[in-house]
């Protein structure tokens, strides 16, 4: 199918004028080729490699001359990056701020990564924070979250929240969620509380229009943390009903929120978490009533419910009242 035949058709049926046809044809024949995302990705990758390379180098040959040069280079780079970000900073606003400088966001990111390296090194070498290890992660958490609001940077916000979680001893990023030791009940409850707290902050940001584009980050990190922790609690711990209620209300909140925002990601997460908790709850109750739940029943249950969810997804627009 050629562009000119399509345009010929459109012009022939008088949908577009022949002048428009010529203009579109001119644009289509010399299309601009944007490598925006490719270059951004390359830059991100470069920043990751550089900071992880420097982060290892700083611990090598600790007593040599070259070593102090490396420390100095990292420090200078770090402050230069922060300085550049500050220099290109936009005025603070409670709305989303788009920085016209293509590098300001990246400089802030590099600065933050190098800051973590530098801070870790200072603690290692000079024991700056003594035995108050908490401070080592609390400081970047506060700093990054502050920077995130000051510079309007979602990536730094999510780094700050990651640091905040590790301050209380939790891994929060999606691929490390399962590495948390949720057999430790205190940690588990802490995870649920922190997760709910983050969801609350996200909700407040949206409710009061204070950086409401940050809500996604809060919801995603907090919601997943709470959901995984409560599922772990539901499977392993006493007081199942509480965990069940937590996860079901979170799932319902997710679906309601998804309905309001037409966010399919939260819809999917809500349905998955809700479905796991519901099925587990149902089988626990059935097991306590009679120990003879047949294999056939559970097979039929999973077949019917999953097929039901498929139908629910297909009919989602009618069910949730979304317009096309």
């Amino acid at each position, binding site marked *: *199918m050629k*562009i000119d035949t399509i345009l010929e058709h*459109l012009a022939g049926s008088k*949908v577009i004028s022949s002048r428009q046809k010529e203009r*579109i044809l001119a644009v289509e024949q*010399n*299309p*601009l*080729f*944007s490598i*925006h*995302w*490719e*270059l951004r990705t*390359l*830059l991100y990758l*470069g*920043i990751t490699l*550089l*900071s*992880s*390379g420097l*982060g*290892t180098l700083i*611990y*090598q040959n600790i007593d040599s001359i070259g070593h102090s040069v490396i420390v100095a280079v990292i420090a200078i780079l770090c402050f230069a990056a922060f300085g550049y970000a500050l220099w290109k900073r936009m005025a603070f606003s409670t709305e989303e701020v788009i920085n016209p400088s*293509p*590098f300001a966001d990246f400089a802030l990111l590099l600065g933050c990564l190098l800051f*973590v390296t530098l801070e*870790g090194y200072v*603690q290692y070498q000079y024991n700056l924070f003594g035995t108050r*290890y*908490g401070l080592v*992660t609390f400081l970047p958490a506060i700093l990054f979250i502050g920077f995130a609001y000051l510079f309007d940077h*979602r*990536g*730094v*916000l*999510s780094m700050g929240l990651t640091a905040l979680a*590790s301050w*209380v*001893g939790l*891994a929060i990023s999606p691929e*490390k969620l399962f*590495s948390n030791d949720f057999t430790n009940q205190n940690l588990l409850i802490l995870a649920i509380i922190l997760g709910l707290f983050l969801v609350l902050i996200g909700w407040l940001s949206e409710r009061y229009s204070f950086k409401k*584009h940050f809500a*996604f*980050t809060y919801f*995603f990190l907090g919601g997943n943390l709470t959901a995984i922790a409560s599922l772990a609690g539901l499977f392993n711990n006493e007081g199942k009903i509480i965990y069940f209620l937590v996860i079901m209300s979170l799932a319902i909140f997710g679906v309601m929120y998804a309905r309001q925002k037409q966010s*399919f990601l939260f*819809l*999917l997460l809500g349905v998955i978490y809700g479905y796991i908790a519901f099925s587990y709850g149902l089988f626990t109750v059935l097991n306590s009533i009679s120990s003879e739940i047949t294999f056939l029943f559970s*097979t*039929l249950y*999973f*077949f019917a419910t*999953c097929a039901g969810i*498929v139908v629910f*997804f*297909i009919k989602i627009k009618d069910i949730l009242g979304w317009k096309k």
Partner: protein
Amino acid sequence: MRAYNEEWLRNLEIQEKAETWHDQGLVTDEQLKSINQAYPQGFYRPNLFLRIGLFIFGAIACGFMTSILSLMIMGVSYSNMGSENHAIAVISLLNGIILLLALEFTIRNIKTLYAGIDNMLLYSVIFSYFFFILYVSLKDSTNFEPLTYCFLMLPILVIATIRYAEIVVGIATYLCVLAIVVLIMMKFPIGKMILPFVVMIFAGLSYWILQILKKKDGLFYYKNLFSLLEICCTMLFYLGGNYLVVREGNAMLNDLHAEVSPEIDFAPLFYFFTFAIPVLYVALGLRRHDRKLLIIGVLAFGFSIFTYRQYHSIMPLPWALTLGGFLMILVSILAIRYLKIPRAGVTYQALVSDKNRNLESIVLGQMVGQVPSEQQDNFQFGGGESAGGGAEGNY
């Protein structure tokens, strides 16, 4: 012959074109609307996350359907079947037929267009067929050889590709043909020797055929599939000539279990391929405005550096990371500055609005966990901090 409504597919293409013209301010709102009316399509094309959901829950439902089916059949006529393998073969066949009917029903009545559920059903049909031939062949506890399995799978894969033009199945078909070529070559001593060249010729030839097929308007139905297969060809062509792949592959095929796999013939030639092909891809990608070639070229270049480092230690890894990172930052900064205004049709300007800022931020959040903390044993972050996780294995 073709499962999806081809007229709708063409109209969809026009609608998408019109959408970009609308974004560029070339057509008005009303015109966009009348274009969409003049070229209607009624596909069910849900959002990515819904597609994932449909895939997951559809797959679970299918799995349990299979087990209901096997419960029924095993219960009824287990004794008549002769052997257990035989029974499984029959179940697989029946299962495949039911799923095929479900697939056709879904496409016809729900009007799905690669909506997750139809992809899933298609894969299940093909897996059912695979289990069918697997268990038929297991009957006398004599396995077929791999080449026979490939030949048995090929017809169904080709038919499925022609009818559904689904990309994963299309790629599987391509790989199946490749496997047949490679397995035949392996039967001859000379074949083993020239295998890398055969793979490269195969990739180049298929790329060339694709270029011809792409131009045929009658094959518009396969547009996306062709473009995905192009990616396969370019990757295969590079990997066929990559020094590391050839050297390790050579050691593997000849059962040479040395600590370091032995040097290969024509080593300089393969080193040349390893570095020339990525450069060629990037240059061609930029010149022809071909995003696939560009991205594969850059990735291949990264792998080439890895290849070289594997056999020649030029500098320790942290230095390589630092220097590499620095160069990447430098190159991208220079490129971004240079391409602020379009040059030779290439630009840094984002032409499509980004919808993934949110997910990007989550990915960035992982970086903080990637700062390595190798020598910090006596230095404790909070318990949950698994620093170095992202870069582990490198140190």
